[in-house]
């Protein structure tokens, strides 16, 4: 999952920002960032005078600036790597901005107050990239009125600090992206706080950023070594998207709390991401099921799973529905060997 740092919507000709927001504190001055990017763009045009082409990426080892062009503005999104979903959202956001403020963009002088309302649109559009569906939202007590719209109304009663966004989406029968967007808006207005809860049965996989950390020469590698020694890198190697944390704890023979500390760091720095498993179970004859189970209870469970496991539902949802742990379901499904396939999705 890409880590977004800041967004700038810059008036093309003038090189001054109409709108800017920071997703994490970066202490960059929007007026100067905008001028700088505009100047580079002019410079590039002088080098190769092709009106159809423009700079779309500025890259350093530890961050990138994705640039997308509009008619009167261009958008610059600072992130840890060039991500196609983030870029597509940036393009969409630029379109929405120009549609809403077309007339204001030609005014003499730029009144930044006019564009401030666009923050909600930005938070909503980037919501699914800003908020991880495995986060646990908790309501913060406040006297202010929570903004209402249909998705927020639907999810509000479900925010109890115990359910993560995936679970809330499931309970509210809403797409998880929509829930992330709604939560992202609530978080930006300080109505909810987001917590990370990691469980023994969680499965993680490495991101593209981690690929660079495997090499000894990189800044990322040194950063992890400085913080956790070789253990940090050992864990990165062990997170293969198949083993859960309990299995990794056993494999590396390290205390779970130590493992947890490193996992939290790797998650926050986006070196790793949660994995959600979507099981698919082939239709089997009663005789085949009986042969692989030991009693009528297990046979009933096998038939139930056969109906549910069609690749649509994640293991976490199935676990809640059947009130069985993810580990129990995984172990049970393993008995059916080639009759079960696992779709792995990075969150």
């Amino acid at each position, binding site marked *: 999952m890409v880590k977004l740092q800041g967004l700038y919507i810059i008036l093309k000709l*003038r090189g001054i920002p109409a709108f800017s927001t920071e997703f994490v504190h970066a202490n960059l001055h929007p007026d100067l960032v905008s001028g700088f990017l505009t100047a580079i763009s002019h410079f590039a045009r*002088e080098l190769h005078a092709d009106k159809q082409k423009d700079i779309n990426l500025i890259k350093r080892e530890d961050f990138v600036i994705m640039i997308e062009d509009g008619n009167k503005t261009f958008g610059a999104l600072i992130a840890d790597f060039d991500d196609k979903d983030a870029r597509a959202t940036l393009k969409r956001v630029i379109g929405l901005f120009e549609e809403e403020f077309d007339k204001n963009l030609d005014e003499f*002088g730029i*009144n930044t107050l006019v564009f401030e309302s666009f923050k909600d649109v930005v938070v909503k559009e980037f919501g699914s990239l800003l908020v991880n569906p495995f986060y646990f939202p908790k309501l913060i007590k406040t006297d202010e009125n929570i903004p209402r719209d249909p998705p927020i109304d639907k999810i509000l009663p479900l925010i109890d600090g115990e359910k993560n966004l995936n679970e809330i989406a499931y309970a509210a029968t809403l797409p998880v992206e929509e829930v992330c967007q709604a939560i992202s808006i609530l978080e930006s207005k300080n109505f909810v706080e987001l917590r990370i809860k990691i469980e023994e049965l969680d499965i993680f996989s490495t991101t593209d950023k981690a690929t660079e950390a495997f090499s000894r020469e990189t800044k990322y590698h040194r950063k992890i070594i400085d913080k956790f020694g070789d253990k940090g890198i050992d864990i990165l190697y062990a997170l293969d998207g198949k083993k859960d944390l309990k299995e990794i704890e056993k494999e590396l023979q390290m205390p779970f709390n130590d493992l947890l500390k490193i996992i939290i760091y790797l998650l926050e720095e986006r070196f790793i991401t949660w994995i959600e498993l979507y099981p698919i179970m082939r239709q089997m004859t009663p005789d085949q099921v009986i042969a692989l189970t030991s009693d009528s209870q297990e046979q009933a469970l096998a038939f139930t799973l056969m109906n549910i496991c069609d690749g649509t539902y994640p293991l976490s949802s199935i676990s809640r529905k059947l009130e069985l742990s993810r580990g129990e379901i995984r172990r049970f499904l393993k008995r059916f060997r080639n009759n079960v396939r696992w779709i792995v999705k990075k969150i």
Partner: protein
Amino acid sequence: MTIKFKVILVGSSESDNEVYLIEEKDILKGEEYQTNLGLDFKLQYKVIGENKVNLVLWLTKGEKHKEIKQNFYKGADGIVVLFETSKEENIDQIIARIQELRKNSPNSSILLIGRNIRNRMNQIVEGYTRQLIKEGKVQKKTDLNIDFYDVGVLDEKGVGTAILDFFARKLLSRTNY
């Protein structure tokens, strides 16, 4: 509310020896950023009435390539033209310079500044007006959005701040705020 303006600072000719009467120490307080594009950015914040005015100043002094410089002029809300004080420049050349600057940012406000240049400024504005009226672009002098500031009447200290304060008010007066 905060109103932002792009303001470029240029010399009265495109030659390399542009002289800036506004010294950098006068322009900026608190923030320092520089680029290596032959271009510096400086910020000047003013509070005028109930509004905050942010002048984003583009200083193109270091850029030697005319084409790149002219790109930087594009879309400027304000242009501050700074005069060489040690020599009398040709009025026609300065008028041509203003026309050239306006080509890239036709709607900009222009502020001409220099020392003891009141007479020359009047001649420039008159000459430029005549030129535009001849071309049918304006009817009368007030359409020009050209002002001048004679720094000869002030002490050296704080000249930059006073000029930019004057210009910020001029720019703000052109908005609806």
